[in-house]
């Protein structure tokens, strides 16, 4: 029994310590964005890596998500004779929930894992130490641009996801299943309020920061060679996904 309590205590203490370290890492990374040199070129490079290169996968995911929502929504609403509400149902599902969450999960799988692998390899090959010895702060040079890129790119990708998803719903609902185009869009305009859009934006900002923070932190603290990089990458994808879903619940309850 004592051993169990000791184990529990150790686990909780480790968790608290690790959470504190991640928060300090975040504060350091964000604070360094306001300290010269500002490195706009590095931020643009990271927006390209994290955002632009994720666009195709976001387009595909959004299109098929919207199409599935259109199909499911149509057959559900038809039972109640409310096919005209299809546009509102698709738009609200995407803007409030599916757009931010699925974008975050896709970015985490594609860019989050890549960030961990990149930073982890820089750690084990002493590139981060090399920066330090040249009096260049590794957090400012490597991590800060990625955090800013996450904050900028993920909301933009979410917006793309929402628009393409709505078009996917239109393709199935209107073009294939015959819902009136006017009712698809007018229902949407009447139902979506600024709070829905604001909620989606806040979620995507939080998710973007969370994904890149976890990815950078895990990479920055990689140990034990190639196996360590593999483990850190794995942890990034799992932890990011869990945190995105946990944040989603908290933020949804806040915006309801």
């Amino acid at each position, binding site marked *: 029994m004592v051993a169990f309590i000791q184990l529990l205590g150790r686990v909780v203490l480790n968790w608290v310590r690790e959470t504190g370290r991640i928060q300090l890492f975040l504060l350091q990374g964000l604070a360094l964005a306001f300290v010269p040199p500002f490195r706009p070129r590095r931020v643009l490079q990271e927006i390209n890596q994290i955002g632009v290169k994720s666009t195709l996968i976001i387009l595909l995911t959004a299109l098929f998500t919207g199409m599935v929502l259109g199909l499911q929504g149509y057959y559900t609403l038809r039972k109640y004779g409310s096919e005209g509400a299809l546009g509102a149902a698709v738009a609200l599902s995407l803007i409030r929930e599916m757009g931010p969450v699925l974008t975050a999960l896709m970015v985490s799988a594609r860019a989050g894992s890549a960030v961990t692998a990149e930073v982890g*390899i*820089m750690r084990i*090959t*002493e*590139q981060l*130490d*090399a920066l*330090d*010895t*040249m*009096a*260049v702060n590794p957090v400012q040079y490597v991590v800060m641009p990625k955090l800013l890129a996450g904050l900028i790119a993920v909301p933009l990708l979410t917006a793309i996801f929402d628009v393409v998803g709505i078009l996917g719903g239109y393709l199935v609902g209107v073009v294939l299943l015959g819902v009136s185009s006017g009712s698809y869009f007018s229902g949407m305009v009447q139902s979506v309020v600024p709070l829905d859009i604001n909620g989606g934006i806040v979620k995507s900002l939080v998710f973007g920061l969370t994904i890149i923070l976890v990815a950078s932190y895990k990479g920055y603290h990689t140990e034990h060679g190639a196996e360590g990089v593999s483990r850190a990458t794995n942890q990034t994808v799992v932890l990011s996904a869990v945190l995105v879903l946990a944040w989603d619940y908290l933020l949804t309850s806040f915006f309801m």
Partner: protein
Amino acid sequence: MIQVIDLHKSFNGQAVLDGINLEIPTGKITVVIGKSGVGKSVLLKHLIGLLKPDRGQVLVDGLDITKLQGRKLQDLKKRFAVLFQGGALFDSLNVFENIAFPLREKARLPEGEIVRRVHERLEQMNLSLEAGKKFPDELSGGMKKRVALARAMIQEPEIILFDEPVTGLDPPMSNTVFHLIKKTHAASNYTALVVAHDIPEVFSIADVVAMLHHGRIIACCGPEEIKHHPDPVVQSFIRGEPDFLEA
């Protein structure tokens, strides 16, 4: 001068440095020898503040690097350069950009001057201008070391730390790298600390040789003196006797 005074460092309760005392004279090449895993690289990382000791001091011209923080530490680091074991070249930059990196970050020179200095270093390291366009993953081990040496030299630092500069290289390339260290030292007269276990080649560049064993410096003298050092552990290591390795 760099003075290491009573330096202690443990990892997971295991003492790696157990009271190191060492003086690294200005303008000389000091070589630290010792078997693999004895803590040579750990000692080197303390000299530039990459690791903080459990106890002890590292004085660089009287300034204790273990106590410095912020701007003062950054200013002191600008006097150093490090050649890491694997080169630590930045994967995302080509050879030219790697060598130019310290100048672009810290020196604020016109681009033309940066290009001139990088070309000068490429030539000094017997690397072609064409090699400047290659990325680190396209280079051989020897080329990586030479590029890393060029990057270390580009800001003409006062102190250069070499972490096993010839590990993994074939004998001719090892001799080339040692020759380049000797040549650049003769030209710039920097203070050097070389961590290595390549006996006897490393003696050809050393002014002072120190041997690290069980967390302590057990011998520190000139290369000729160390060859005749009375300590049997030193003699055993220099001769490469297997009983020492197992001890």
